[in-house]
Each structure stands twice: as structure tokens, then as C-alpha cells.
């Protein structure tokens, strides 16, 4: 189960809206097309149904904390399809629970470039392994050291660094989104081709 990777195109944007309790309120057409789940399969179900069972809790708990403290949060996620495949995405999460019009938590996912994916896949496997052998506390310390080695104070900062900064990541995530009203976009110094080029060329120099 979940051994085969499904390749998704870089220009596809998957949108998913969660209710306050973490249940799925809405998914876009791209989401049903890619995952094979129908709206009926997912609506009202916990978001965990579309999440790979080996996603590390260390990452998920931090993201939930971020969602509830920040308007915008970011995550690199391993997702699953109805057929039992998996696919990697980078996503931003917008907390609009406080809004009177269409409240909810909006998740916008896009294809994760493969050179970032390789490093993250390894990290998540390690975190999942540590969580199951030594527990969450040890996994959190490991993540802290892992981030320090990569000169990042938080996992979000690490994600930004991979894309050349938060603005570029936002730009990367907003390209080709039809529903412009849902999300505000920030101006950025790089266009989308430049961002993709940056990600590909990025040096993996580490610091300690």
C-alpha cells in the first residue's frame, strides 16, 4: 500500500478546504482528478484520510500549531490517492476560520520539485522511525539539529530557503490558480521560471 509514486504535473493546483474540526469541507476538481477520490468520498471525513499514514507527527503537530497562530502556514506533505499511490506536495495553508464569509482552513498544494523531495522523503522516514522507537521528544530534537545543520531556525524557514524565500514560494504556489479571490498574492522579484531554475540549481551547501 502507498508504494507507488503518482507523478503530478507542476502546473496543477490542488485545493482543499477544512472545517474547524479538521474535517474536509471542499476539494477542487483537480483534487478529485488526481486522487481518484470523489467529493462524496471526502466531504465530512477527517483530513487524515488523504494524508500518508507515515507522515511524521513531529511535522504535523508543528503545522497545526502554526495554523492556529499564523494566518499563513506552509507544509511539505506526502499525500495518497484512492488507488493506494502517493504523491508529494508543497502547500500553503490559510487560516480563514475567523472570517464571516466562507470560513475555513484553505490548503493549496502544488507539485514538489524532486531535488527537494529526495531530502524530505529521507527526513520524514527518519522522523517517523524515531517517533516509533524513541518517541516524539527525541524526534523533535532530531528535527532541530537537522534544521540547524541546514541553517534554518524552523521547518518553514527551511521550506522558504528551498524556494529562495517566502515571496518566491508564494509566487510558486499561486501560479495558475484560477480562484484568485481566495488567495492574495505578493509581488516577487522572480517570475515562475526563475523560481524553478533557482530550485533546480540550488546548492546544497550546509552550515553548522
Amino acid at each position, binding site marked *: 500500500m502507498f508504494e507507488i509514486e503518482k507523478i503530478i504535473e507542476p502546473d496543477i493546483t490542488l485545493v482543499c478546504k477544512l472545517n474547524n474540526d479538521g474535517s474536509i469541507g471542499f476539494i477542487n476538481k483537480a483534487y478529485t482528478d488526481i486522487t481518484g477520490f470523489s467529493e462524496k468520498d471526502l466531504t465530512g471525513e477527517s483530513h487524515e484520510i488523504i494524508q500518508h499514514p507515515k507522515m511524521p507527527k513531529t511535522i504535523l503537530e508543528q503545522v497545526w500549531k502554526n495554523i492556529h497562530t499564523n494566518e499563513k502556514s506552509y507544509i511539505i506533505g506526502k499525500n495518497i490517492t484512492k488507488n493506494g499511490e502517493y504523491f508529494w506536495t508543497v502547500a500553503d495553508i490559510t487560516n480563514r476560520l475567523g472570517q464571516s464569509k466562507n470560513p475555513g482552513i484553505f490548503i493549496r498544494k502544488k507539485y514538489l520539485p524532486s531535488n527537494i523531495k529526495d531530502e524530505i522523503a529521507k527526513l520524514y522516514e527518519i522522523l517517523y522511525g*524515531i517517533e516509533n522507537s524513541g518517541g516524539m521528544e527525541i524526534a523533535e*530534537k532530531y528535527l532541530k539539529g537537522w534544521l540547524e545543520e541546514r541553517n534554518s531556525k524552523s521547518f518553514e524557514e527551511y521550506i522558504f530557503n528551498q524556494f529562495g524565500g517566502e515571496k518566491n514560494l508564494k509566487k510558486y504556489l499561486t501560479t495558475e490558480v484560477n480562484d484568485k479571490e481566495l488567495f492574495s498574492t505578493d509581488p516577487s522579484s522572480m517570475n515562475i521560471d526563475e523560481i524553478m531554475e533557482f530550485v533546480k540549481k540550488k546548492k546544497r551547501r550546509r552550515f553548522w
Partner: protein
Amino acid sequence: MRTIMSKTDAKGIIEYANDYFMEISGYKEWELMGQPHNVIRHPDMPKSIFKILWDRINQGMPTYALVKNLAKDGRYYWVIAYFIPVSKEGKIINHYAKRKAIPDEIKDEITSLYNMLLELEKTGGMEAAEAYFLSYLEEQKMSYDEFIFDTMRLSEKELKKYMDAQITDESLGLDMSAEEAIKNSVKKKRRFFW
């Protein structure tokens, strides 16, 4: 020119170790995190050397050491390690360590010193071995740091450069200047031999 890195808490419990650490030691991350660092301690290492090392680190002094480590499968690997204690509000909270390979010539020399210290530990105990080593340094008018630089045949600056040398992804090549430095260093004469 890869670097073996680890981070422990003040008591030496491993909090983080990098991918090269895993590759060389043969452990998986989930086997090592939360474990005391001495799981990779080799029985051929004199206790007196660790005593000197810990005494320095606990005083907040970054310290080099030449260490023979034990891999999971029972094999050993020699490194030059640099331990950096990190304090918060006057209390040491973490130790960071970087390690690099050392040339075979240096392994042989340091092995004869360590064998002698081990012998002394067996007969006179750890204190005797430590006292011997420290008085020897004194006789040579050499500090512990100078002993390390001398053994490595590198200046403090050169050794620091060697410890910091990294693979850069651009060429996937090695930092040649640092590698050349360590290769050439063993040709140099030392101030004294054990």
C-alpha cells in the same frame, strides 16, 4: 571531504547526527537518537584521553581529539573530532561535534601513544595515565592544543580549514585545497614522536 556531525545534550545523549555519521557508524537514526554517545566508543580508547577531553569541554573550551570509534558491525574508524560546547545562561546545554578522517600515518602514531596510555591505565589506573600524558606535554613545553596541531602537522588555522571543508554541490567535487593540505601535512616533520 565529508564531515561527520553530531549534537548531544550536556550529558552526552545524542540529539542529532548527520547522514555521514550514519553511513560511517552503520547505525540507523532511530537506533542512535536518545542513546549515550559512548555507544560508538571503542575499547582501544584510553579513558585518560576522554577524561582530559571532558574536563576541557565542561569548562566550555572547544576541544580537538583524535578518536578511534566503533561502528555497529564492530569495525573501527579514526577521526579528528572537534567538540564545541554551547552554553545558555552560564550552563552548558549542548555539545556539537564535527569529525574528519585522518591520514593512516597519523593513525599509526596515535595508536602507539594510546597503547602506552592503555598499558598505564591497566597497571596504575586512569590517574597514572593522565598524569603521564600531562607531564609529557609539560616536558615538551606543549599545550594540549599544540599536541593536536603537532600530531596533525597543521597550524591551528589550517586545521580549522580542514574541519570546515565541505562538499559543494556545484561541482560535486572536493574542496581540493583542504584535501591537499592534509595530504601534504603528513610529509612534514613533527617536533617529537611518541
